[in-house]
């Protein structure tokens, strides 16, 4: 990671060469796969045939390097390998593996590129290739952006096939029967005479062979797992309280710790007085850390109590102290010198606006939002002069390893990251501040494992949120149709803030995140313009489930609905008429039929709203149905239709869609972070509640498999839910709510 910046600069050049269509030598060289990390440290009798399969006398271990935050990534990765390897994913060991560039994510940069994720033109493909090379060189072993499935769909099956054929080759040599006559089943190679030999028994011989790489993937008619209902590999553990998360690790001699860092994110510490805290029961040590102070004790609760008793003075961070001041910054950012992007400029918006007697104008706002996963940030760290061991849930293990090496001055190969299952993330563990704090504490307790846990209050205040966004929109309608739409968006750059914190190069070019979900939408409005203005950085921010589109879907989907109503058109019919992307159009047609759409008003108590957002390559359209009750507005039903190319596991697919919608609707209803004296006012779940059980609607999910590229489904359900809900509220009440959360303007039951 120390070489990161220089390498990156060089790689961008190479990447650019690829974008221009020229394929440089370096490009090819960089295309080579990094060496298999499992080969290092193999013991006698163990074979690591590909970076994803390890076999030893005890059996098979599948390596699933993408973090599991609840989205089921361990399970789907294991099933993809198993599909070709012929093992039962429930019967083998699963290991997230070490942090290593071999596990780079070829698709993680897609969302930062100024091409729509469905654009398949030469420039877009070139840029994606550049993104892939960059990711490969930086060893971007990142989990996010709904990329686990697109990245692994072929790669993991190939890994399974290579391992299978290599094991067969070992059996062939042993038995003298040619490989083509051998079959495999349930972790065994089957000989023509019906005798079998287990993979485990072949480990030693397989380790001597060069992997067999002339393999072809099985045709889909032969699939055992893909496309059928899968059983999650962790479902029994998670249904019996026996799943161990990072927060449950409790090594011998462990001590318990917590920290208090400046509640104004990015601000430093002036001084502290721990004289009272030091004397409290169980306290072992008070340790100054970057921007704060930590307490090490013999019990987490005692550490919490002592931390709360420390008197601390903070230095203010360099941005406005309260929400009003922050919004002011955005309000003042619509200026020429802050113009950042104009990724869409169809027709002539100005002409349409000046030619209309009644242009429609509106301003939309989306708030800062915390990820607030239910498992608070935590890490267990054991530091010695020779090595550092970190047990934690992380979406960025390679970055963590690099940051830890810098902090401890140990070489990277002495940093062992043991990735743990995660109790929800939604983007929170794309940062590693908490783990670095734990390392600082562990360095003060050499040889003793330190378990650091953030209190919920610390977590709410130190969750790098989704950025606030302010849009100014204008549009015109003519003859019952939408004629023009212009959206000017001001926001701070998520990418700049996050990549800088990771000490990674900020992707060059426009800040796509602040306009994704708007400029790239599949609607052929004759005059359509999207302009991004880059506000200065304020609260440090990070990706939040579905990233830029998460908030932008609301700006776009609401204002488009506003124009459609002004035109007097039916929202569903007009979206279909405007749509110029075949899969998206099929999604809308299906949604119209599945929801039996007959207009946005059902009766005098019930109404509906519709929205479509294309994000991460997935067109996702939703109808939200609301009713007026004496307790307030109730969300009765949601219909969701999308196209993901192919559904790998219908059980988890439905879970992700429903979960994403509940996530999006809950936050749209009642969540925001507002700031006073640099810190969020929302300190716990009573002020950041999202959806509760009694509010959960019926959710009818229909996934289309139109046969295009296979896509992930963690992110795409989120963006259209908030606008579909706000559009339903408009249809019900006549009130156009242009700011989230909606409960500032209406009451919910």
């Amino acid at each position, binding site marked *: 990671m120390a070489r990161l910046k220089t390498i990156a600069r060089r790689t961008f050049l190479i990447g650019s060469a690829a974008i221009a269509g020229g394929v440089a030598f370096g490009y090819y060289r960089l295309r080579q796969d990094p060496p298999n990390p499992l080969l290092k440290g193999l013991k006698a009798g163990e074979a690591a045939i590909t970076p994803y399969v390890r076999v030893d006398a005890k059996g098979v271990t599948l390596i699933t390097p993408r973090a599991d935050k*609840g*989205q*089921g990534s361990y399970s789907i990765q294991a099933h993809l390998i198993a599909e070709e390897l012929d093992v039962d994913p429930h019967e083998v060991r699963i290991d997230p593996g070490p942090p290593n560039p071999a596990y780079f994510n070829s698709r993680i940069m897609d969302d930062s590129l100024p091409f729509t994720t469905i654009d398949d033109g030469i420039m877009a493909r070139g840029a994606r290739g550049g993104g892939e090379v960059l990711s490969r060189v930086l060893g971007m072993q990142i989990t996010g952006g709904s990329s686990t499935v697109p990245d692994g769909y072929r790669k993991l099956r190939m890994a399974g096939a290579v391992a299978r054929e290599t094991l067969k080759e070992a059996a062939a040599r042993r038995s003298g029967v040619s490989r083509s006559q051998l079959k495999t089943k349930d972790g065994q190679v089957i000989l023509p005479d019906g005798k079998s030999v287990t993979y485990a028994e072949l480990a030693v011989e397989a380790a001597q062979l060069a992997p067999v790489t002339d393999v072809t993937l099985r045709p889909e008619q032969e699939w055992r797992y893909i496309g059928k209902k899968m*059983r*999650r590999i*962790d*479902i*029994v*553990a*998670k*249904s*019996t*309280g*026996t799943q*161990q*998360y990072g*927060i*449950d690790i*409790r090594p011998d001699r462990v001590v*318990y710790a917590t920290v208090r860092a400046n509640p104004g994110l990015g601000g430093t510490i002036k001084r502290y007085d721990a004289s009272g805290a030091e004397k409290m*029961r169980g306290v072992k040590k008070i340790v100054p850390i970057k921007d704060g102070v930590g307490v090490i004790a013999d*019990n*987490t*609760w*005692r550490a*919490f109590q002592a931390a709360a008793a420390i008197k601390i003075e903070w230095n203010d961070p360099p941005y406005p102290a309260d929400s009003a001041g922050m919004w002011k910054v955005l309000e003042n950012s619509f200026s020429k010198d802050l113009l950042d992007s104009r990724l869409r400029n169809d027709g002539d918006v100005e002409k349409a606006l000046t030619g209309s007697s009644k242009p429609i104008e509106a301003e939309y706002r989306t708030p800062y939002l915390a990820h*607030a*996963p*239910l*498992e608070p940030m935590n890490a267990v760290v054991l530091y010695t002069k020779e090595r550092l061991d970190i047990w934690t849930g992380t979406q960025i293990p390679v970055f963590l390893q690099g940051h830890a090496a810098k902090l401890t001055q140990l070489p990277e190969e002495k940093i062992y990251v043991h990735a743990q*299952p*995660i*109790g*929800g*993330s939604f983007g929170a563990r794309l940062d590693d501040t908490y783990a670095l704090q734990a390392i600082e504490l562990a360095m003060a307790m050499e040889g003793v494992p330190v378990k650091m*846990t953030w*209190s*919920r209050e610390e977590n709410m205040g130190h969750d790098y949120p989704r950025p606030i966004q302010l849009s100014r929109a204008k549009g015109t309608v003519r003859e019952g149709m939408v004629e023009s739409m212009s959206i000017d968006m001001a926001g701070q750059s998520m990418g700049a803030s996050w990549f800088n914190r990771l000490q990674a190069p900020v992707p060059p070019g426009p800040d796509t995140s602040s306009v994704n979900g708007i400029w790239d939408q599949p609607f052929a409005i004759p005059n359509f313009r999207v302009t991004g203005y880059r506000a200065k950085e304020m609260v440090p921010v990070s990706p939040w489930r579905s990233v830029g589109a998460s908030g932008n879907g609301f700006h776009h989907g609401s204002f488009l609905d506003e124009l459609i109503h002004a035109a007097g058109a039916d929202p569903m019919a007009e979206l279909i008429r405007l749509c110029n992307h075949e899969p998206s159009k099929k999604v809308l047609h299906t949604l119209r039929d599945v929801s039996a759409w007959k207009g946005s008003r059902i009766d005098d108590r019930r109404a509906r709203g519709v929205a479509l957002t294309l994000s991460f390559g997935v067109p996702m359209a939703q109808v939200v149905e609301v009713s007026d009750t004496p307790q307030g507005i109730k969300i009765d039903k949601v219909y969701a239709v999308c196209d993901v190319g192919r559904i790998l596991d219908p*059980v*988890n697919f439905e*879970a*992700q869609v*429903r*979960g*994403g919608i*509940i*996530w999006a609707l*809950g936050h749209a209803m009642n969540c925001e972070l507002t700031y006073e004296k640099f810190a969020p006012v929302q300190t*716990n*779940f*009573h002020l950041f*509640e*999202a*959806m*509760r*059980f*009694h509010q*959960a609607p*019926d*959710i009818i999910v229909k996934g289309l498999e139109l046969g295009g590229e296979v896509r992930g489904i963690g992110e795409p359900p989120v963006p259209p839910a908030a606008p579909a809900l706000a559009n339903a509220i408009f249809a019900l009440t006549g009130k156009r709510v242009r700011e989230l959360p909606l409960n500032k303007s209406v009451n919910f039951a």
Partner: protein
Amino acid sequence: MQLTINSNRYDLDVEPEMPLLWVLRDELGISGPKYGCGAGLCGACTVHIDGTAVRSCSINAGEVRGSITTIEGLGTPANLHVVQQAWIEHQVAQCGYCQSGQMMTAAALLSKTPDPSDSEIADAMDGNLCRCGTYTRIHSAVKTAAQMMKGK
């Protein structure tokens, strides 16, 4: 101080105001009950005291009267409680972090109200947050568990 947890008796030397959750997790290594909010707002720490669902983060260890059951005492992978069976059947869990608490709340509901109506389910489950949004499957699983109990 003495506590009975999952039918075992424990002698403890902790201050009476330590919340039960931290006695379970840090003093005894019983990690099924989870820390989510520490303030009775999320339900992740739910246990039973004499069969009643209680937020273990919000009751002091010194105030506990009665015998404590955690998710570990409700059932095990080899000997599942009906609620756990139903949870597996419906594949409720995503991250799973809230689910110990969800199942403890559901089990307490069903032991008192074996055939709950939709609104009784909603009332009982409303205090358990799930950030992953598994509510619709929780609802189905509670219904299934109620059916399974009838069949017994």
